[in-house]
């Protein structure tokens, strides 16, 4: 109304190597997702048994399973639509076929974004040094994921540089330093409360000078609605590019599997700030399913590449969509 215009116009003039957790079970994707599977498969099994067509009570069950896995309403609707279309097209005979259709449809959504030039820990065909910038909100597991990445690259005989560009959170530098000791990576830091971009630059220079295969830059956790902090990421990226114009080859957004629909907003803002091209999903050894990545991967066309299934250096795996989906639904 006029009154709002008026107001608007008015405004115009105006070290210590700490032991690793011993108690955590032999964590891997299977055992990590086992708990996931039990609850979901039990329900889905019940929903399927004795049904000869996709009736509404089955769809209700499916809806509940997907929503309680944090898939989100919109993506759940999309999955159900695809599933129904598929059933209509292919007709199904048995319950386990329904199950297969469902898995295939969800896997398809995730696989649509698979990168054609997939680079694994062997770094075959990758630039040297291969630069990975790791970003995400607070406490999702960035630093731990970096430690695990360093371990995996080292296992493949790669020389790794870690850049401690989280100079803000208490003891963040110490934490990364411990990971560098655990994995034998070269550690670059300028200490706490220094300019993160300067650290990133120094790490990049060190990586080039020392002919490292991989440079991984840790950043401070930041909530995506904090504009200044998001801009800082842009700056970090630019200084890396001053030394290596094509870098960073990988910008990894780390998502915590227990995060709900807010992960969408995270993906949106971090992508806007740094052109995220890779997702890592952590803490899949817990009870949360991380289903939100299905929608994120779909909407932003970013593949999930890594999953975290524990706190030890071995607890990182390359993401496999079919396996992820199948452990979601069935043995």
């Amino acid at each position: 109304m006029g009154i709002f215009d008026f107001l608007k116009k008015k405004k115009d003039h105006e070290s210590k190597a700490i032991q690793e957790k011993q108690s955590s079970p032999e964590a891997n994707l299977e055992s990590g997702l086992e708990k996931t599977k039990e609850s979901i498969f039990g329900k889905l099994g019940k929903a399927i048994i004795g049904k000869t067509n996709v009736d509404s009570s089955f769809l209700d069950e499916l809806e509940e399973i997907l929503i309680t896995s944090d898939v989100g309403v919109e993506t759940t609707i999309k999955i159900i639509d695809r599933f129904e279309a598929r059933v209509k097209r292919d007709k199904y005979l048995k319950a386990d076929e329904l199950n297969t259709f469902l898995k295939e449809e969800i896997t398809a959504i995730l696989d649509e974004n698979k990168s054609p030039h997939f680079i694994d820990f062997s770094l075959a065909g990758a630039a040297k040094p291969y630069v990975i910038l790791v970003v995400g909100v607070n406490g999702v597991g960035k630093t731990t994921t970096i430690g695990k990445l360093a371990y995996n690259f080292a296992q493949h005989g790669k020389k790794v540089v870690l850049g401690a560009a989280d100079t803000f959170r208490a003891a963040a530098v110490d934490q990364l330093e411990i990971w560098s000791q655990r994995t034998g990576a070269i550690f670059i830091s300028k200490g706490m409360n220094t300019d993160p971009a300067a650290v990133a630059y120094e790490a990049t220079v060190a990586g080039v000078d020392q002919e490292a295969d991989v440079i991984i830059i840790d950043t401070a956790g930041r909530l995506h609605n904090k504009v200044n902090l998001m801009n800082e990421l842009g700056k970090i990226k630019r200084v890396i590019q001053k030394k290596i114009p094509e870098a960073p080859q990988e910008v990894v957004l780390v998502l915590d599997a227990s995060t709900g629909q807010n992960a969408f907003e995270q993906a949106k803002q971090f992508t806007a700030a740094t052109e995220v091209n890779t997702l890592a999903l952590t803490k899949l050894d817990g009870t949360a399913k991380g289903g939100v990545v299905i929608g994120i991967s779909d909407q932003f066309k970013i593949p999930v590449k890594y999953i975290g299934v524990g706190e030890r250096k071995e607890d990182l795996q390359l993401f496999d969509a079919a396996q992820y989906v199948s452990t979601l639904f069935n043995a």
Partner: protein
Amino acid sequence: MFDSLSKRLEGAFKTLKGQGRISEINVAETVKEIRRALLDADVNYKIAKTFTDKVKEEALGQNVLTSVSPGQLFTKIVNDELTQLLGGETEGLKLSGNPSVILIAGLQGSGKTTFSGKLANHFKSKGQKPLLAACDVYRPAAINQLQVLGEQIGVDVYAEIENKNPVEIAKKAIAEAKRLGNPIVIVDTAGRLSIDQAMMDEIAAVKTAIQPNEILLVVDAMTGQDAVTTAENFNNVLDITGVVLSKLDGDTRGGAALSIKSVVQRPIKFVSHGEKMEALDVFHPDRMASRILGMGDIVSLVEKAQDNFDEVEAARLRKKMAKNKFDLDDFLNQLQQIKKMGNIKDLMGMIPGVGNKIKDLDVDNESFKGIEAIIQSMTMQERTNPELLNGNRKSRVAKGSGSSVQDVNKLLKQFQDMRKMMKAMNKMNMGKMMGGNK
């Protein structure tokens, strides 16, 4: 993707408009929208279902006030119900021991260590001298982290670098507090999954050993559907006394708060809203409710309107608008009505669809002062008949109100635009749109 509830309801309420009473039929679509909004806000699937059923019951048959649309009334019912569920007994910390002991627990990365620091800082600022106990013996640099925070806020930290037994460290920390005379001990623990039996046994053992007065579960406000499982499992093992919601400075809707509250029936005692040691607050159920519903604050708008908006006056204005007789004096009256309701920016922010647009707009009640002064400097005749205002009169008004002739012209121009719009809206049957034409 995450449209706010109010925006959604604007659509859903089309079905309700023009109907004076909320009935079974017109409510179905609305209930669906509310449920979806709750799910988008990460409220647990089952809890969202139960909640909407309850709201539906509450809403059925309610009479709709004339100054409020059925939609707005419905929103208020939802909000009231939610606020009540989130709130319940508001309790502070119960600290009676000597020293009083507070055990902090939660998943990895939820914000326990940061919260421990904040809580210590909170006690310190009240003149009590807490002791922090570093019982996370696993996470790399966890002890350092707590020590750095302790140093920052000037609170002692009890740590044993070589000791890998949290139970022992916790017990010794309490002995140390007794020795030093610290009235409160805050025990920071390692993050753990609720299904990690060994780690859950460990924290249960810590609890048994130190008999804490308070056991607080720190939960990340961004948590999704899993909040229910985690809260339930931790509560089963520890019988927690309260919940802390962390990272509320983000833009998460925070539906986990409702899920947790519904499952464990323990009060949310604090919210953490930043990385700084001062970013700690008590929990406000009403704010949390609006946040979960993502609806600006239409509820308070409805309440304020109910309190302040004079039905008779509203009817009189509507009539005048309908006849296109709305004049500057009415405009002044309306401004004053609005002002009575509170801060103008807040008010405008409460209007669905407007909220976002004025976020960065620099508006306050002062902006109205100029307008008021100008109108008040006019004679009654001029107010009813702005056309009378020639050059002479305008400069008199400008002088009287301490503004310029340009300001007067601007106001008049705005007023004319407004009238034009009203005329256009009248053609579209404005009376009905404004919620009843009594």
